[in-house]
């Protein structure tokens, strides 16, 4: 464990505060590209404010698992964010092998969400849960391949180093491989955050939904926690993509944090563009996309192994 630096915490706070902006930017980009006015960029803040003031209604068939799920989801994501070197230097928490803890926390959050969905006993939620887990089983190997590539590139086993100064040092040598990793991570971002072409966050047809259907029974503050978690997850994956593609170790602290926030904004715009130009894939084709992302990461690994 290293010492907690103030800059790292400041960066984390900045990211937490701006995370709910990202879905707004995505929606705005989509509206702009399709010629509509669209919701305000700050819409998610208003939604969260509204939801937190509401009460909750729990179905009588649910147990404590259902109530714990939103808290666990948000808690795991917050903890995972602690492992990322958001200021371009070092994360608040870092140790060799923390990438496993990071991936494990993401998996735990997903597990809680899925259990919460199953706990309702509704077949819709069960269906969504099954899809979520199926796709996760394709996405996680791809994520690990990306991490392996980064480990090979930097020779370090800690996310702080893999995305920090050592990465900046190898960039000139391994640009092509790292670009591939970035592309692979971007596909994973789309899949993990239930974006087109994997899932459509705007749909209300239960048969085709994945993420939205699991949280169908959550309401009030619970839903707010889950939505905040969703925004945070987008920010975390965005920070991974930006961290790989834009090494910021050479910049000053303020510049590095600003660069990260701008980078997150660009990622959100990109997501919006993808959502505007692509249709959602058939469910059976989604694994193909994820295997493709894994193949990209594997290619990067091969390039780095030479």
């Amino acid at each position, binding site marked *: 464990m290293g010492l907690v630096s103030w800059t790292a915490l400041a960066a984390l706070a900045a990211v937490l505060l701006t995370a709910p902006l990202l879905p707004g930017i995505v929606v705005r980009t989509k509206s702009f590209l399709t010629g509509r006015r669209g919701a305000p960029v700050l819409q998610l803040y208003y939604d969260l404010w509204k939801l937190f003031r509401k009460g909750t209604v729990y179905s009588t068939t649910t147990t404590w698992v259902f109530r714990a799920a939103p808290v666990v989801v948000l808690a795991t994501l917050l903890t995972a964010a602690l492992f990322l070197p958001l200021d371009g230097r070092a994360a608040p928490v870092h140790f060799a092998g923390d990438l496993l803890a990071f991936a494990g926390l993401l998996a735990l959050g997903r597990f809680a969400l899925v259990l919460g969905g199953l706990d309702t006993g509704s077949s819709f939620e069960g269906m969504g849960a099954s899809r979520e887990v199926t796709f996760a089983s394709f996405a996680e190997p791809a994520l690990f391949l990306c991490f392996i590539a980064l480990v090979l590139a930097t020779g370090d086993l800690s996310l702080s180093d893999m995305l920090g100064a050592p990465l900046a040092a190898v960039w*000139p*040598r*391994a*640009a*092509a*491989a790292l670009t*591939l990793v970035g592309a692979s991570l971007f596909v994973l971002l789309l899949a993990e955050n239930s974006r087109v072409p994997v899932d459509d966050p705007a749909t209300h047809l239960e048969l085709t939904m994945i993420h939205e259907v699991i949280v169908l029974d959550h309401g009030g503050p619970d839903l707010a926690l889950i939505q905040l978690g969703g925004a945070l997850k987008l920010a975390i994956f965005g920070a991974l993509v930006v961290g790989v593609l834009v090494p910021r170790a050479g910049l000053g602290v303020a510049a590095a944090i600003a660069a990260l926030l701008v980078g997150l904004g660009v990622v959100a715009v990109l997501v919006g563009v993808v959502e505007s130009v692509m249709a959602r894939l058939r469910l059976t*084709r989604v*694994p*193909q996309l994820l*295997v*493709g992302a*894994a*193949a*990209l990461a*594997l*290619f990067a690994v*091969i390039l780095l*192994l*030479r």
Partner: protein
Amino acid sequence: MRTAPEVLLLLVVLTDFAVLGTTRLSTCIRAVAVQGLLLGLLPLAFAQHVSLHAGALAVGTVALKALILPSFLFWAIREAAVRREVEPVVGYIASLLLGAVALALAFAIAARLPLPESQQELLVPVSLATVMIGFIVLTSRRKALTQVVGYLLLENGIYLFGLTRTESVPFLLELGVLLDVFVGVFIMGIVVFHINREFDSIDSAHLAELTD
């Protein structure tokens, strides 16, 4: 990783995977067209100074592999009114994984081959990988047209290997090789067209009358 050829070669591999992973024939053809363009640009990227030889070869390659052949294949699918490879012999995920294995194998083989003076260390592995992926497409798809695309990938891979030895094969011969490939694909395209007319499908699985 600084040079333009490396980027072009990586894009070649990505087009290989695009062919492996897509169900749409038009995407397949587009990917091969992009690959033809990349192949045409490679000699220019390699050349220290732009020579007449490299320029003419680039123009010839781009014209044939990126423009004429793809538009001819597009004509064939328009005539045949097919858009998708319905049921490949090997599924898409499996063929993507096979492609990844082929890629790893290509790099492993290339690392062990004694290469004389390597101008571009990525060239040989990418060439071998493209050859193998072409082979996978050829053998794992049922549509006659996808098989033609696989053959084109195979030829592109061999062309890439030929780039390591540009001094051995003079310009006229390279044109001869290009021309042969062109005529070959042209005749295959005509046959695809006739298969479609005769069977109302370009599924080469229909071609199973002749057996022992």
